[in-house]
């Protein structure tokens, strides 16, 4: 293994590692623009120059392989002067857009100028004019003047999505990044990543554009609930400037690097699919229907009513109660719900809902199953079996008069394959309780509705399609009077006089890991453990 010295410190790396990555291992950041660990090396920006003893000229560290005995200096006078000169060239035609540019605050031209530039402008000529604010896709806007032609975006469309929409056209100081003229917009489902990888403000996100300054944002580590892949994400939330982003607490979501799950990327469906979190149709208060008229309730009254409905129903026979949990719920919620309803004697506990149309799937990240925790629900041995969706089985039982009370967790049946049958059957049932985040056709007709928190308002774990148990953390408080699933189940347990349920996800997970073999930390589930997320969930480290 090559052992080299960088800035006087020794480091060993895997053969084939470049000097830039070797320095990263020592915590030394070599400034760069075009280099991206997930893309092929272009070596075009020239910003990552370093001095290597025995080599007459400065070398670009992104394209120089670490070799045994190499002695590298990343911050000598010679290097600093070269970086300053490179930056001066990169900025020759760069417009002074910073006050109106979304990238400000996380722009590597700004950052490196403050660290390595700090020269006085020697420019006497006019800057070259290019196209500005050009929408090039559903989610992305291009500003050619701000572009430094690092070609990260071009390589992304080439190597990752393999859609080849972008290229660098013309030459010299007239070079621009642009769409191939034969197409009118980006055609891939991963375009949000272009705004992430653009080191400057040339590609910005239309969803995030002019919403807020990045320095008002805080980050929470989370897991995308958009499909069963479970891409690791960072939820950027804003609670210090409430009037920003039109009152949206979450102005954007970005992928968080996890080489085992999503690499550096996430899809657009996931990235922009979180908007229900701050939508106007969020359920904010418990509500019951009184002869068809909605009446808002306090939580104590709601718990009492729910407990009454459930005890009435179980008195008639616990097998007359059907529970539809959701594969959108966390492992902890599913486990606590299973425990609560089992102790009531309920055995019809399902979660499988078939969508109207099968979900889109590709070879990169997107999975057809649009639920984040189907695997978790399966490992908890939920479901009615019967070789069909649990909704269908429940509706069969309801039609046959075997079930007359249902509790539905966060599944809008009007969007399922059983939409018509559900619309006909549900109103005929004795009692329908809906626990969910947003209003929909199913919630509107329920006798009792309990408002539930969304994934950004709670913590917990999802089990992705491969069986990785991944933890996510809370970003913001539950909206209105909504409560986390665990909190609602705890309230119900108390109202029903059952064994108490913890509202703390970590405690519930500990119990779950002890009781459910699949989650148990043993040799048979080493794969689950080796992701690290399982252990972190148990230890509660952030």
């Amino acid at each position, binding site marked *: 293994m090559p052992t080299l010295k960088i800035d006087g410190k020794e480091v060993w790396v895997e053969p084939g590692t470049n000097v830039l990555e070797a320095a990263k291992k020592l915590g030394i950041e070599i400034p760069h623009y075009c280099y991206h660990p997930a893309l092929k090396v272009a070596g075009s920006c020239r910003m990552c120059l370093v001095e290597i003893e025995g080599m007459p000229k400065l070398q670009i560290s992104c394209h120089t392989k670490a070799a045994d005995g190499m002695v590298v200096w990343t911050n000598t006078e010679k290097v600093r002067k070269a970086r300053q000169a490179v930056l001066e060239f990169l900025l020759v035609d760069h417009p002074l857009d910073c006050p109106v540019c979304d990238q400000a605050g996380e722009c590597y031209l700004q950052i490196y100028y403050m660290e390595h530039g700090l020269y006085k402008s020697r420019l006497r000529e006019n800057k070259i004019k290019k196209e500005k604010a050009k929408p090039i896709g559903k989610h992305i806007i291009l500003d050619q003047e701000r572009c430094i032609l690092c070609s990260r975006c071009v390589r992304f469309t*080439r190597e990752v999505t393999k859609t*080849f*929409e*972008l*290229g*660098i*056209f*013309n*030459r010299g100081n007239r070079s621009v990044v642009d769409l*191939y*003229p*034969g197409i009118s917009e980006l055609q891939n489902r991963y375009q949000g990543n272009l705004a992430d990888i653009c080191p400057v403000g040339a590609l910005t996100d239309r969803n995030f554009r002019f919403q807020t300054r990045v320095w008002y944002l805080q980050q929470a580590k989370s897991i995308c609930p958009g499909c069963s892949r479970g891409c690791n994400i960072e939820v950027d939330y804003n609670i210090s400037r409430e009037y920003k982003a039109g009152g949206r607490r979450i102005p954007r979501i970005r992928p968080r690097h996890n080489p085992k799950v999503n690499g550096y990327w996430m899809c657009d469906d996931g990235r922009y699919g979180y908007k229900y979190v701050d939508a106007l149709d969020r359920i904010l208060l418990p509500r019951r229907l009184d002869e068809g008229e909605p009446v808002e309730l306090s939580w104590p009254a709601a718990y009492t009513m729910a407990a009454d409905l459930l005890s009435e129903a179980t008195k008639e026979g616990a097998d007359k109660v059907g529970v539809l949990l959701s594969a959108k719920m966390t492992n902890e919620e599913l486990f606590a719900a299973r425990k609560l309803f089992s102790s009531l004697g309920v055995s019809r506990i399902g979660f499988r809902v078939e969508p109207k149309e099968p979900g889109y799937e590709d070879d990169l990240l997107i999975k057809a199953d649009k639920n984040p925790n189907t695997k978790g629900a399966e490992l908890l041995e939920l479901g009615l079996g019967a070789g069909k969706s649990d909704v269908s089985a429940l509706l069969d039982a309801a039609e046959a008069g075997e079930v007359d009370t249902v509790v539905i967790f966060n599944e809008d049946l009007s969007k399922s394959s059983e939409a018509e049958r559900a619309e006909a059957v549900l109103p005929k049932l004795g009692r329908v309780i809906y626990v969910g985040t947003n209003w929909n056709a199913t919630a509107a007709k329920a006798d009792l509705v309990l408002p539930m928190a969304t994934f950004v308002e709670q913590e917990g774990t999802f089990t992705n399609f491969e069986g990785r148990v991944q933890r996510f953390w809370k970003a913001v408080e539950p909206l209105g009077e909504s409560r986390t699933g665990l909190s609602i189940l705890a309230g119900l347990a108390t109202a029903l006089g059952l064994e108490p349920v913890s509202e703390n996800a970590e405690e519930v997970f500990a119990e779950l890991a002890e009781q459910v073999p699949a989650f148990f930390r043993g040799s048979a589930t080493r794969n689950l453990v080796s992701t690290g997320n399982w252990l972190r969930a148990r230890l509660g480290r952030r």
Partner: protein
Amino acid sequence: MSVEFSEKALEQLRELLGHYPDRQAAVIPALHLAQEEFGYITQEVEDYVAKLLEIPATDVHQVFTFYTMFRDRPVGKYHIKVCESVACHIMGSTNVLDYLRKKLGIDVGQTTPDGRFTLTTVECLGACEMAPMMQVNDDFYGPLDEKKLDEILESLE
């Protein structure tokens, strides 16, 4: 115009491809061929070349826009390219250009109304010993003066 290579051009392309390690490398000669075939390169032609080479059209467009010798519009029967680089400039390329402008009645980048001549300027063509010089279609002419220019233009009538 129907965008399809003649049998001869296809044969030339097949031969060309054998000269290069990959298809990407054959873009420039393929575009030259296309320009010979069609006179100039349109987007349709770029798409056709991309299809022939089995590479993304974006790659063809990157090359096409980078090099000045590829044309995106038709030129006259005789395409006059006057060298403006240092050696020719010192030897009087400005006079050559002024004389051609006056004589043809067109400016740089234009084509005579009868479609016979197109006048453009180029950078060094590597024939400094002939300075001031110009290229007409594939042939070099120089050193140039007004008399020589008259003779050349007459021979092209």
